[in-house]
């Protein structure tokens, strides 16, 4: 049940992303909003990969929780029919080797060319990266989910990332609570307004230059 505005926004973004995943895809979900995407996918021919070593992630009921069966966010999950387990090198070979179709990731910033920053904040200790850099170089398609603005109201869609970038690879699609952008030939295109959002709102809250392709 949706209990607050933040939660509602996250679910709206997740639902929109879910509709962009074609059947027969192998999908890797990052931590945060991306995790919610699975709730809105009921196509049994979409398989979820988690980098800690499972292809075939499903939801799990409280009574079936196994502490040794978790996703990359260390949240308990279930295993689908046809699931397989593997070691971390094999898991990242799947990612780096181009065998994962879609990666859905959170971001702190996305720039006007689709380059993202999602692993470190300047002024804080840079002590964690996880699988983000591998997913960006390896996944065939990368979709970013994030709120349009940061807590201080500043745009997360920036002309150039001021936070350390995660990869030089440009992502393919960005979904926020206000808009859907696609990156085409290194440029941000606004392709869709989210329910309830206006073009004026998107213009006001987007620092990065973008092309209006509604």
């Amino acid at each position, binding site marked *: 049940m949706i209990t607050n505005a933040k939660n509602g926004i996250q679910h709206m973004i997740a639902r929109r992303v879910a509709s962009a995943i074609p059947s027969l895809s192998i999908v890797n979900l990052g931590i945060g909003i991306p995790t919610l995407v699975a709730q809105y996918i009921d196509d049994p021919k979409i398989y979820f990969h*988690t*980098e*800690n*070593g*499972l292809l075939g992630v499903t939801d799990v009921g409280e009574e079936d*929780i*196994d*502490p*040794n*069966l*978790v996703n990359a966010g*260390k949240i308990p999950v279930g*295993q689908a029919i046809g699931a397989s*387990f*593997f*070691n*971390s*090198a094999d*898991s*990242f*070979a799947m*990612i*780096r080797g181009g065998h994962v179709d879609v990666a859905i990731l959170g971001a702190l910033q996305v720039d006007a060319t689709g380059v993202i920053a999602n692993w*470190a904040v300047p002024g*804080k*200790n*840079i*002590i*964690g*990266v*996880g*699988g*983000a*850099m*591998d997913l960006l*170089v*390896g996944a065939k398609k990368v979709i970013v989910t994030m709120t349009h603005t940061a807590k201080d109201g500043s745009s997360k869609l920036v002309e150039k990332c001021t936070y*350390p*970038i*995660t*990869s*030089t690879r440009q992502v393919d699609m960005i979904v926020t609570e206000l808009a859907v952008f696609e990156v085409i030939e290194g440029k941000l295109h606004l392709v869709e307004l989210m329910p309830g959002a206006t073009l004026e709102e998107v213009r006001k809250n987007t620092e990065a230059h973008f092309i209006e392709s509604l």
Partner: protein
Amino acid sequence: MVDKIKSSMSEALEPIKDGDTILVGGFGLIGAPLTLIEELTKKDVKNLTIVSNNLGESGKGLGILLNQNKIKKAIGSYFTSNRDVGEKYQNGELELQLLPQGTLAEAIRAGGAGIGGFYTKTAVGTDLAIGKEQREIDGEVYVLEKPIKGNVALIRAHKADRLGNLVYYKTARNFNALMATAADYVVVEVDEIVDGGGLDPEEIATSHLFVDAIVKAEMILTKEGVVAR
């Protein structure tokens, strides 16, 4: 028939000495050799280099070893899960080497497989590629990463036979099967030990030649947290 079962934890960890590089399996507490880590906290050693995806959590698992100031350097991919790591790093009490998770895994695989390094696209153009050799191969830029090896590996598996063949359990496999290959001395803790022939050769994920010592796990990860068996 060879029998690698050790009757005591202290006997199993006897070869560990000051300054060793120790590979420790697990993704957070999942698949971490909790009993062996606990035993290591009782051992008088210092200046250790720990290779592990995380350094446990604050005051848990490898986090205890960290707070005992036994760790000189940590190599891993995600230390954010233990707030003490940032603090010690900031105070100059701990060296860190941060690697992308896939690079960490592949470096350990390379270490165990006798590979002198590998080129990967991961991290090219980012802060984590600074100071590393880059090379263009077939029109794409790659960064050179070196192999990782340990003096000792402490790992967790589900079942072992007395020879040291191992079977893992679900997502507790993670780095364990790789670390088994990449250290001079490999100790495994398991839920169950069976006689030789008791495991299906088709299901064995780590062959016995990699394993030196086997102990029975005494600390178990449950839904309610870590408990003594």
